[in-house]
C-alpha cells in the first residue's frame, strides 16, 4: 500500500464574482509535509483561493480533494473538522476573550461535550475540559506566548496576536495549516522567529500553505511555490526555478515592451 502523498489537490477551480473572474482554472497539489507558498501581486486571487479551500467561498467550477476525499460546497466547519485550519490576513481573533480561551475554542471541533455535559459537569466533561485547558496552554507555550494567557486577545501586541491565531488554528489538530500573510507588518526579528516557528510546525508533520508578500521569507522557507496572477496560476515549482521564470518577473515588474 502506498501512502497518498498529495494532501490537497485542486482541479481547474474557478471562482466568479458576478462578471469578475477572481480565479480561473487553477490546478495545484500540495504534498504532505511540505511548506507550500502562494505568491502573486495584489489582487491576484490568493485570498480568494484561500477562502475557497477553507469553505468561506464555494467554487464556481472545479473541485478539490483533501486527504483523499472530494469536497464540494462545504461549510467552513466541515473543512475544519476534515483538517484544514487557517489564519486571516486581517487578524480575526475573538477580541474580548482571553488568549487561553481563544485557543480553547480551537479545540471545539475535537471535543464533544454538549448542553447536558455542561449542566451536569460529569466526569467525562470535567476530564475533557481539563484536557482542553492543558492542550491550550501547551499550544500557547509552543508558539511562544504562554505569559499573556489570561490577557484579552485585543490587548495583545500585534506579533502576539499573529501567533495566537496560529495557536488557535493548531488547536484544531489540522493536517493542513493555511496562513494568510502571517508576516504582514512584522519587523525583521519577528519575521525570523516566525520562520523558525513555521519550520518547527512543518517538522511536527503538519503541512503548511502560506500566502506571503515577503519574497525573502517565501524563498527561504517554502519547499514549493505557486504564483498567481489575475486569477491564473502562472508558475509552480521550487523557489529557485520560480524566481527565474520570465512570466513571474513580468507579473511582478511589468512586461517589457520590446
Amino acid at each position, binding site marked *: 500500500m502506498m501512502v497518498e502523498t498529495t494532501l490537497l489537490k485542486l482541479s481547474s477551480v474557478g471562482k466568479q464574482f458576478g462578471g469578475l473572474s477572481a480565479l480561473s482554472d487553477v490546478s495545484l497539489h500540495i504534498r504532505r509535509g511540505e511548506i507550500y507558498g502562494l505568491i502573486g501581486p495584489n489582487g491576484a486571487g490568493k485570498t480568494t483561493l484561500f477562502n475557497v479551500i477553507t469553505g*468561506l467561498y464555494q467554487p464556481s467550477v472545479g473541485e478539490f480533494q483533501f486527504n483523499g476525499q472530494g469536497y464540494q460546497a462545504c461549510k467552513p466547519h466541515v473543512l475544519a473538522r476534515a483538517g484544514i485550519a487557517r489564519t486571516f490576513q486581517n487578524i480575526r481573533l*475573538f*477580541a474580548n*476573550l482571553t488568549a487561553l480561551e481563544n485557543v480553547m475554542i*480551537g479545540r*471545539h471541533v475535537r471535543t464533544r461535550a*454538549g*448542553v447536558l455535559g455542561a449542566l451536569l459537569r460529569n466526569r467525562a466533561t470535567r476530564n475533557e475540559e481539563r484536557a482542553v485547558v492543558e492542550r491550550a496552554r501547551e499550544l500557547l507555550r509552543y508558539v511562544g506566548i504562554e505569559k499573556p494567557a489570561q490577557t*484579552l486577545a485585543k490587548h495583545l501586541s500585534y506579533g502576539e496576536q499573529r501567533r495566537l491565531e496560529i495557536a488557535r488554528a493548531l488547536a484544531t489538530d489540522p493536517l493542513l495549516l493555511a496562513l494568510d500573510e502571517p508576516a504582514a507588518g512584522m519587523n525583521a526579528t519577528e519575521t525570523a522567529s516566525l520562520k523558525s516557528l513555521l519550520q518547527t510546525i512543518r517538522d511536527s508533520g503538519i503541512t503548511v500553505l502560506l500566502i506571503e508578500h515577503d519574497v525573502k521569507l517565501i524563498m527561504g522557507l517554502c519547499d514549493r511555490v505557486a504564483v498567481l496572477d489575475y486569477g491564473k496560476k502562472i508558475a509552480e515549482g521550487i523557489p529557485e526555478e520560480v524566481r527565474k521564470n520570465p512570466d513571474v518577473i513580468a507579473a511582478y515588474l511589468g512586461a517589457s515592451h520590446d
Partner: protein
Amino acid sequence: MKFNSKSKALVAALVVALLLLPFITDALFGRGWVRIVDFAMLYIMLALGLNIVVGYAGLLDLGYIAFFAVGAYCYALAGSPHLALAFPMMFPDGVHLSFLIVLPLAALLAGGFGVLLGAPTLRLRGDYLAIVTLGFGEIIRIFLNNLNSPVNLTNGPQGISRIDPVSVANVRLSATQNVLGIEFPSVHLYFYLFLAFTALVIFASRRLERSRIGRAWMAIREDEIAASAMGINTRNLKLLAFAMGAMFGGASGALFAGFQGFVSPESFSLMESIMVLCMVVLGGMGNISGVILGGVLLAILPEVLRHIVVPLQQSLFGKTLIDPESLRMLLFGTALIVMMLYRPAGLLPSRVRRRELDSDEVPESIGRNQA
C-alpha cells in the same frame, strides 16, 4: 465549586438574607411589596434567559417576551377551565394538569418556538435580526389577541382567567400555609418557589457559560466567520442559543401564569421585551451578576418611584402634577443615556473580574471565576 471560609460565610449570609427577605419586606413595607419582589424574581429569570441569547451568543432579540407569552399561555391552557369553552366534548372541565408536568411542557414548547424564530433568521445579524425578532414578538401577541375565533383558543383580549395556582405535592401556594407554627402567606410561598427557580437558572447559566458550548457561543458573538473557520457549526449553536433562552423564558412564563392566575395579551407587549433587554444591557451583557442587578433595579425602581412621587407631590403641591409613569420613562431614558456615555459595558461589565485575574497566579482549575 471551592469556597474559602470567608466567601463561605458570605454565601451563607446571603442565603439566610434571601430566605428572610419576604418576612423583612412584609414587616417593613407591607405585603404589596412582597408581591413586587416576586415579580422582580420573574424578571430576573427572564433577563437571565435573554442573556444567553444576547449576552453570550450576541444575537440581538427584541421579541423575547414572546417566549414568556408562550410559556404563560401554555400553563394557562393546561391549568384552567378555559378549554372547556373551545372543546366541550373533549374537556368538559377544561384541562388541569399538574404543575410538574406543565412547567417542562411550557419550557419545551417555548424552546420549540425559539427554534422556529431562529431558523429563518440564521443569516441575519445586528439590526436586521433585531427587526425580525421584534416582528416575531408582535406576531405572537397579535395571535394571542385574535385566536378567539373560529375556535376560542386564547379568549382574545379578555385573556384567560381562573388559572390553577401552582401546587407542589398537594400544597397549594395560593393559600396561607402553616409550617412549624410559622404562617407563610401565598406571596411568601411564591417567593420561595421563584427563588428556587432563579437559583436553578443562575446555576444553569453559569455552567453553560463555562463550557464548550458557552465558549462556542461567545466565539460566534465575537466573530462568526472566524468561529466557523475554527470548526464551530454556527447554525446549530445559534439555534441552540435561541432554544435555551426561550426555554428559560417559557418556564418563567408558566410561573407567571400560575402566580397571577390570569393572562392576557397586553402583558406581552413590545415594551416588555425592551424592558427585559434593558435589564440585560444596563446590568452588563454576558455577566450573570450584572444581569441580576439590572433586573432588580428595573423591576423595583418604578415601584419605589410610584410610592414616593405621588405622596411627595401631594404634600408639596396638594395635587399630582407629574404622573409617575411618565416620570419613570423620563428617568429611565436619562439613565440609559448616562449609561451609554459613562458605562457602555453595563453596571457590572463581564470582564472586570477577568482583568483582576490577569495576575500570574492563575488557578490551575478549569473555571476562571471559581475563586
